[in-house]
């Protein structure tokens, strides 16, 4: 167990931690941009003097920052390997794709949580956030359960750089853009064109946001700028169950799709250092 699972899984955490450390200036640049981006969105609510709108935008920015960072870390893990020239060595190691995914996801979760925390601190410089009364632990539970589905989506997207070394990495951004559009991150899904709305039901971010808004008490009639009336975790069980089932479906599906893509790449010779 230790030799076959835990040590190989830890290897990916070890590698990604040291790569993040060595590319720290880039991490600072991207985090700074994310803080500024979140602040400019949140300030729209401040300008409207509407605390519910402000909280909706802040929650959207933070939740999307977390989920998109996790998705990108997993989806781009293959593209990074190809870019570094290490793809062949990682793939010829005696490590199952599940262990590979778990290792990459473990660091991605840790990294995304820290990054989102830093963005929240940065946002506090621009927006007066009083979250008393919000069920923040409940939001954390929703994020962690929602992470499972995003891991599966990331894994499915990770096949794109395997199949197309030239354009695959860019294509992962299209999928991410579609998720951003249809999940109602900053607006209710009901404002989307009717033909687009069914796609919202397929995105885990939609359910994570719906649940988080309830837990924060954003729409609760009794909430005021000084005191929010957050819902208990039991009130979002349907969303939690949906997110869990999505994770249960997307992770094995992602592994299956990835295994097919890997086999195809081994037939066509796409599993090369540089593509």
């Amino acid at each position, binding site marked *: 167990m*230790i*030799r*076959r699972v835990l*040590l*190989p899984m*830890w*290897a990916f955490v*070890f*590698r990604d931690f*040291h*790569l993040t450390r*060595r*590319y720290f200036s880039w991490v600072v640049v991207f985090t700074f941009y994310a803080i500024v981006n979140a602040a400019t969105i949140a300030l729209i609510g401040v300008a409207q003097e509407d605390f519910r709108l402000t909280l909706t935008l802040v929650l959207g920015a933070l939740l999307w920052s977390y989920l998109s960072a996790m998705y990108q870390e997993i989806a781009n893990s293959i593209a990074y390997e190809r870019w*570094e*020239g*290490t793809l*062949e*060595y*990682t*793939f*010829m*190691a*005696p*490590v199952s794709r599940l262990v590979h995914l778990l290792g990459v996801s473990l660091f991605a979760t840790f990294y995304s949580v820290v990054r989102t925390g830093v963005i929240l601190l940065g946002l506090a410089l621009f927006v007066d956030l009083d979250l008393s009364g919000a069920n923040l632990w409940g939001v954390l539970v929703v994020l962690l359960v929602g992470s499972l589905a995003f891991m599966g989506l990331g894994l499915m997207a990770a096949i794109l750089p395997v199949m197309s070394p030239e354009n695959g990495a860019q294509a992962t951004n299209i999928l991410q853009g579609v998720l951003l559009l249809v999940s109602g991150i900053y607006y209710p899904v009901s404002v989307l064109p009717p033909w687009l709305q069914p796609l919202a039901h397929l995105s885990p971010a939609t359910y994570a946001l719906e649940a988080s808004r309830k837990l924060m008490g954003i729409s609760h009639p009794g909430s005021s700028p000084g005191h929010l009336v957050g819902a208990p975790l039991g009130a979002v069980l349907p969303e939690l169950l949906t997110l869990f089932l999505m994770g249960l479906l997307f992770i094995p599906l992602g592994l299956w799709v990835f295994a097919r893509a890997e*086999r195809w790449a*081994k*037939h*066509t*010779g796409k*599993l*090369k*250092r540089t593509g």
Partner: protein
Amino acid sequence: MWAIEVENLSKVFRKTTFGRRQEEWALKGVSFRVAQGETYALLGPNGSGKSTLIRILSTLLLPDAGRVRLLGLPLPQEERKVREQIGRVSVDAAFYKKLSPRENLLFAAQLYGIPPKEAERRAMAILERLGLETRRFGDPLEEMSRGMQQKVAIARALLIRPPLLLLDEPTTGLDPKSRREVQGFLEELRREEGTTILLTTHDMAEAERLAHRIGFLARGSLVAEGDARALKELAGAQDLEEAFIRLTGEAFAQEENHDS
């Protein structure tokens, strides 16, 4: 027991350009065997299929026809068991260049289930033997010379103490001193550990020094094999290069573009 058994191995790469389907045969019915503890060198120009063959043996590529058994295990059925027992060094030292040798080696070791302390001990011993200054163990690899990077690549392949080592032009681009150090280390490895080595190279002298037997690979086919003396006698040639040209009808300087 044979360490490597390759039978009628073929690989074709297909691509479509402007609606035209093209086929390039990288390997055409290649067969050879390598005994345990033997060093076998594959000689061939660029595009002869050497790297394709190494990739198939490394479990990174699936053949279109033929059979492969490594250490008695069939591929691709026993892929995982084979992966646990092979080390590979490719022509370019493929590393996370911002990471140090220590970080790269510990990552690789943990992938194979070797605890970090044990991996560090093994890596230091190999790198010291290869003449790498261990005080540079923590510097980013991108700041190191090609020779130093290649020594770290060899250390990575040897961390798991593999019974079978696949070396794809491991000394290409190294300075003469580094090349001699690597060659000396490979000889020592074979002598002391009994490691089986499959080596591809352009370097005739290297093949003659290291290999028990040599195979001439040209345009995806194994044209001739034997020890250096037998090949020279077969071709009626003074040296290996001349023997290669006579037996394959191909000069070594010839460049082709379809090596995969």
